[in-house]
């Protein structure tokens, strides 16, 4: 396996083969951990038929992980961004504080008189007494107070670790207060210890949104092409860029779940003709449940990257099948690309052949590969923080995924077709399209897109990340804030793909331009050359410098 790595090597110009790197990383662990991590760390030997990965398994205690908890996935990611629902965290102060505007899911109020509740972090701030005697009364008072002061349309309550343990029944408090106040009030049992990562929280959130919000408002939406975008959280304004492109195409987005979205959008979004899914991991449950209840079909899209955006727009146009829409989409693509092309052509002169590694999220480590490919860069290693096997290997493995104890604890809703609102025409249309080769309910997964003999690492630990840098020195790593500074300490620029380092949007066409410029700037920066002071420069370093200048 130890053939000399060259520029054509799937792992870039430096370092050993992926298999050797894998062995090297596993070496440090005790036997048991080695076995477990071994399953989460693969060489992508057959991209066409991906090997089985040990994703969505428990984090080994003591391994410093990127993963968060169920509460973070539920409140922090999926429901937190709904700006006109008032969110109350039931628990001691930490969780409410840490999830207070710490994700960059952007929002604007739509009309005068509305309040953007995201600027508030409400917590019942449980004290020892509540832990001993129960906190239901405190929660009830908090809901009443919030109602008195803000009169919101809806209040959403999130349970943190101790709540489940002391047996507070947040759901009965919510029901009681809903009845009393006459507004929609619902709770989420998303205690941090549930599941193995924030992914459990996504599922819990999907269930709650589906039960308490979807289908509440049947007001018809008059538009020829109506869709929802599921799993787009408007980080750095991504959803707004997607909105812009869709408006140009003449497609109506009823609800974007749940970025830049209002409560009203969500309660009315079952009026759509089609659901398209961005982040498969966090919201595939919703897509499935809406199809079962209302007949709305779904397919996977990706608006991160030029090729992905074009492909996704065309597929949506084809779904509706009207020539005017298909033509309009082509016109929009042509006009937008005219703007993007000179940028990408310029940037590519500097970025082609450079390497990247991506360890982030449950879909981003896949989506962003498109953007790097657009720039002629090579992704040598990638992995998710909290995804499941289907996000790596594709949805065709779903029937073979063993349900473990942690997943079984998360409620699986039984959904049946709605007696009056199930649209029987939609499945018929879906079937006829499928016959002509159109794919629905699809996701091919990350590994199929990755090059042969690259590294796939699930839930990467700090230690493994450091090894990776030591061995390969990628030109850029896409990750999150918890890794950013350790990566940069080691002389590699790190792009935060959760928060975008205060930049963005990166979606759609204008977003791609932002991304190309940011990555170009990061991979061309010279700051680390100053790390070694001139009086310490050895002959070797000078040679390296000379090489860098000629390169």
């Amino acid at each position, binding site marked *: 396996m130890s053939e000399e790595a060259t520029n054509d090597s799937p792992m870039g110009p430096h370092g050993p083969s992926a298999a050797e790197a894998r062995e090297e990383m596993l070496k440090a662990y005790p036997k048991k951990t080695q076995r477990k991590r071994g399953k989460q760390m693969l060489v992508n030997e057959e991209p066409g038929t991906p090997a089985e990965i040990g994703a969505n398994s428990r984090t080994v*205690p003591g*391994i410093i992980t990127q993963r968060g*908890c169920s509460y973070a996935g539920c409140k922090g990611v999926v429901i937190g961004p709904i700006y006109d629902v008032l969110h109350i965290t039931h*628990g001691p102060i*930490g969780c*409410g504080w840490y999830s207070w505007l710490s994700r960059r899911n952007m929002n604007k109020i739509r009309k005068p008189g509305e309040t953007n509740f995201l600027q508030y*972090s409400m*917590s019942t701030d449980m004290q020892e007494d509540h832990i001993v005697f129960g906190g239901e009364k405190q929660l009830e008072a*908090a809901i009443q107070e919030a109602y008195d002061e803000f009169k919101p349309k809806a209040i959403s309550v999130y349970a943190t670790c101790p709540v489940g343990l002391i047996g507070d029944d947040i759901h009965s408090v919510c029901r009681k207060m809903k009845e009393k106040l006459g507004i929609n009030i619902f709770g989420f049992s998303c205690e941090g210890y549930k599941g193995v990562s924030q992914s459990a929280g996504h599922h819990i959130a999907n269930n709650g949104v589906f039960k308490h919000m979807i289908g509440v408002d049947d007001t018809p939406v008059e538009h020829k092409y109506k869709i929802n975008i599921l799993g787009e959280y408007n980080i750095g304004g991504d959803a707004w860029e997607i909105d812009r492109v869709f408006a140009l195409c003449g497609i109506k987005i009823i609800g974007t779940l749940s970025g830049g979205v209002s409560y009203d959008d969500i309660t009315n979004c079952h009026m759509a003709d089609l659901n398209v899914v961005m982040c498969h991991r966090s919201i595939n449950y919703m897509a499935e449940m809406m199809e079962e209840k209302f007949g709305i079909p779904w397919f996977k899209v990706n608006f991160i990257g030029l090729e992905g955006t074009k492909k996704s727009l065309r597929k949506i146009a084809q779904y509706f099948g009207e020539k005017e829409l298909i033509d309009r989409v082509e016109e929009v693509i042509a006009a937008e690309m005219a703007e993007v092309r000179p940028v990408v052509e310029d940037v590519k002169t500097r970025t082609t052949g450079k390497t990247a590694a991506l360890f982030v999220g449950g879909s981003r480590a896949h989506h962003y590969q498109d953007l790097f490919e657009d720039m002629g860069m090579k992704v040598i290693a990638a992995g998710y923080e909290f995804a499941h096997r289907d996000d790596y290997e594709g949805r065709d493995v779903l029937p073979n995924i063993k349900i473990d104890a942690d997943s079984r604890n998360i409620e699986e809703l039984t959904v049946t077709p709605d007696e009056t609102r199930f649209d029987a025409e939609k499945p018929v249309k879906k079937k006829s399209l499928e016959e002509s080769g159109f794919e629905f309910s699809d996701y091919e997964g990350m590994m199929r897109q990755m090059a042969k003999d690259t590294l796939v690492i699930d839930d990467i*630990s700090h230690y493994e990340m450091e090894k990776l840098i030591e061995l390969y020195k990628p030109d850029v790593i896409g990750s999150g804030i918890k890794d950013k500074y350790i990566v940069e300490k080691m002389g590699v620029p790190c792009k935060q793909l959760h928060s975008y380092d205060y930049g963005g949007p990166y979606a759609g066409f204008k977003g791609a331009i932002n991304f190309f410029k940011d990555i170009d700037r990061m991979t061309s920066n010279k700051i680390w050359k100053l790390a070694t002071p001139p009086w310490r420069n050895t002959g070797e370093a000078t040679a390296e410098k000379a090489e860098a200048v000629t390169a």
Partner: protein
Amino acid sequence: MSCNCKQGNPDIMTADGDSPEAALPAAATRNACKLCSPLGAAMVFKGIRGCLPFLHGSQGCATYIRRYMISHFREPVDIASSSFSEDDAIFGGEKNFTAGVENVIRQYQPEMIGVGTTCLSETIGDNMLGMIKKYQDSHAGKGPPLVHVSTPSYTGTHSDGYYAAIKAVVQHFAKPLRVTMPRLVNVLPAMMSCEDLRYLREVCAMYELDATILPDYSTTLEGGSWEMYHRISPGGVTINDIEEMGAATATLEIGHTQANNKDSAGHWMEKERGVRLDSVGWPIGIRLSDEFFAAMSLIANRPMPDQIALDRGRLVDAYIDAHKYVAGKKVAIYGEPDLVIGLASFLSEIGMRPVICATGAKVKGWRELVTAEIQGGCNDVETIHGADHAKISERARELKPDLLVGSSKGYPLARELKIPLMRIGFPIHDRFGGQRILSVGYRGALELFDMVVNALMESKQENSETGYSYL
């Protein structure tokens, strides 16, 4: 929480010792002015060389605390977790604890593991000391020391977690020693910036003292680029030095709340290890710095070094030059208790009126503590403890301060009131350099003074019709 809020809010005291009439929400905390206690403990552990913080609970706690500390310090912050699952929450976390500790030791080879608890492990009542002992017994006492501090998020704030961890570390390591080294001093700082800690060391050196500063995260949380990979960020006070704290000539414990706290680490050192305690407030401004340097002179048996005296002169000179821009201006201060007291002292001494002095912590005798340090009377000073930003905002709308002083979390209020925010404390995540703000001593006061004056001048310029540039 008792709800006698109809008679006014019990957590707010006006000048006459009354609670204001208007009832403020008390059941929910809106926009908290405090963080949870494990965060404070993690800060302390980060200030010990080779120490890896370890939180016993859900991994979310470690992750959230890491991301918050990182966004302030912009440095790597590793905190391990025992990653509880639902089963562990029911049956206890011992298995995870043991596995976690083993993995941490193998991967990071720490010199110490600082074990904090979370509301999860505290609620189920995991016996940490028992678990640690069992682990160590089964390893024949080998491996790094495990130091435990109890930090449930449902009691106290990050400040409490911080001070509790200092005490836990001192109790664990400081040996009873018969010798006294006259040039050795222990410094137990409040939750200060990295720059403050560096300056404290410099000051000690100027007094020809060898300082054991616990914690010292000045390098671990603000270091340079690495030429080689470090498992644990370099820097921090060594365990060896902590062990020898009993030989110091004195302990300088910083923070008004600790002076009053008979259970503080400094008090413990005095009682149990016979090291004299000198308690000082967070030395912000001239008077508190005078007290601080007087204590230093006493400990060191040296007069004030010329350099420091010169700093003092420059500070007074600056006060004289700029007093017309600050005198009579109203300021609202919020943050950790000891920081707020120090700032109130400083801001009142330059002629500003600290109309709101708020902390998220519940502090016994808060009003007395704060007002004792305020110059120029306290009739117009409102002191709030157990505050959240909703309460602070409510009062600020009425009292109309000209300046806000505190963490980044005051920004929405500053924007609403169209007044400047001078950022200090934790966290600062919407500006750079929070970890480099110097507040301690005359030099720190000078830096803060310039920040205050310039913030006010800038806002005056921006809101002026003419916008003169020569002021």
